[in-house]
């Protein structure tokens, strides 16, 4: 049967219901456990294989060796201390797609996706961060 105003009742009922929207900056809904937000880096687990860099679709992550180089005392002699391997991860938050492929690629589980997503900044330089 064709009749006008088929949605009137539903619209009137909605007056007595709670709003469907939430007041976002004041009320925050918790993100799901699988959410892919800002990355977290576990320095002690990283072995510097750079697979995360290789697989990143937007070249957003850079792994750099910040350890001390091998100490040389005399020419041709054995180094006193071997080179220290210590890595740091730098992420361009504006380049990152938040796909978390780097988390999947990392064999040593040195990367983790957190639920942090409010990363906007007016300063472009602040978006290149050490994680």
């Amino acid at each position, binding site marked *: 049967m064709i*009749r*006008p105003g088929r949605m009137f009742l539903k*619209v009137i009922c909605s007056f007595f219901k709670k709003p469907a929207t939430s007041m976002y900056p004041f009320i925050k809904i918790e993100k799901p456990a699988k*959410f892919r937000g800002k990355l977290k880096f576990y320095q002690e687990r990283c072995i510097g294989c750079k697979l995360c860099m290789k697989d990143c*679709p937007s070249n957003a992550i850079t792994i750099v060796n910040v350890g001390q180089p091998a100490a040389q005392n005399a020419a041709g002699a054995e180094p006193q201390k071997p080179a220290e391997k210590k890595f740091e991860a730098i992420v361009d938050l504006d380049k990152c*797609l938040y*796909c978390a492929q780097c988390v999947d690629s990392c064999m040593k589980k040195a990367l983790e996706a957190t639920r942090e997503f409010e990363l906007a900044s007016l300063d472009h330089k602040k978006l290149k961060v050490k994680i």
Partner: protein
Amino acid sequence: MAKVTIPIGPQHPALKEPASFNITLDGEKIVHMTLKLGYNHRGIEKAAESRTYIQNIYLLERVCGICSHSHSSCYVQCVEDIAALEVPKRALYIRSLVGELERLHSHLLWLGVAGHEVGFDTLLMYTWRDREIVMDLLSMLTGNRVNYGINTIGGVRRDITKDQIKDILVAVDKLEEETKYYAQVATQEVTLAKRLSRVGKLSHEDAVKLGAVGPTARASNVDRDIRRDDPYAAYGEISFKVITDNHNDVYGRTLVRIGELLESYNMIRQIVKNIPDGPITVKAPRRIPVGEAVSRCEAPRGEDMHYIKSNGSDKPERVKVRAPTLANVQAVAKMLENGYLADVPIVIAAIDPCFSCTDRTTIAVKDGKKTRGLIEWKDLRKYSIEWYKKNEGIDLSKIKLQNEK
């Protein structure tokens, strides 16, 4: 009376994407329409050739914001086909589940957009409110609301738990109830039903001749669905009906989409009931052997097709994407013939267009004249540098490409 040609677009408030329509009118009756695309060419296919197979999953997922899962599924199926990988069954079921959830949110979105185009914004508000339920489900299952990133070569990246299955079933029951109500609204609300009826006519013969796909074709009684005709993922093990309609107009397309929503609820119930245990992924090689493959998926808008040629390295040699809108857009000119100017927004919206997905071509320009000949990559780059120098006063010649000396 003299015929008038009106250009609509590339920027037009009724359409949220750039496309230009030249409409020739006799009074307010449409005599002829020509469509011009190419405002949003993003060079995705070329970009895919310089990225690895894993990086391309995320690039090709971004071809479309609505059928993102269909594009990535289609791509990984091609790669799995070339590499002869056997994907675990549980992964196939999860792919189908996300595919159906994507169909739900796409059709609910379309229903709202259709309401908006005909001035029935109440429907837009209610359908988009219900769409949030599906978006939250997708966010819970995959970690994101739009670009799900669930697919990987050889399976899926995230498993589903028993608690999530319970949440899915509760949400599906609620959505089914709401969709049945929208089905009543679409068929009983006189303002909506009469506004959509006999608008954008596309006969069965024309739909077949012009190669329409998806709900556009099915509303013209073309019984064609990739999920049934060429089963992929877990569709071969699920029983479902292909919804067709013989109204041949926008009203028919609305009914087909609502029918597909109701059918999808049953499919989701079957998937979560029959989902097998086991692994969700197999190890995939980084270098894919030499070969080529074509894969098809039934995106919410219709048949999506990908072609990949591999040369044995970790990067594809050629990636070709045919988005469903490209198949359907040919039919729009036919739909608008003998229609009225006021019907243009709803007729175009009825195919659920996505012009950014469709823009897959560039036109080679030589000496200011359009040519159909091929242009070398090197010459094209040289031409672009000269063009910018002449027209915009920007000198780009100092920028060197990665592989350029």
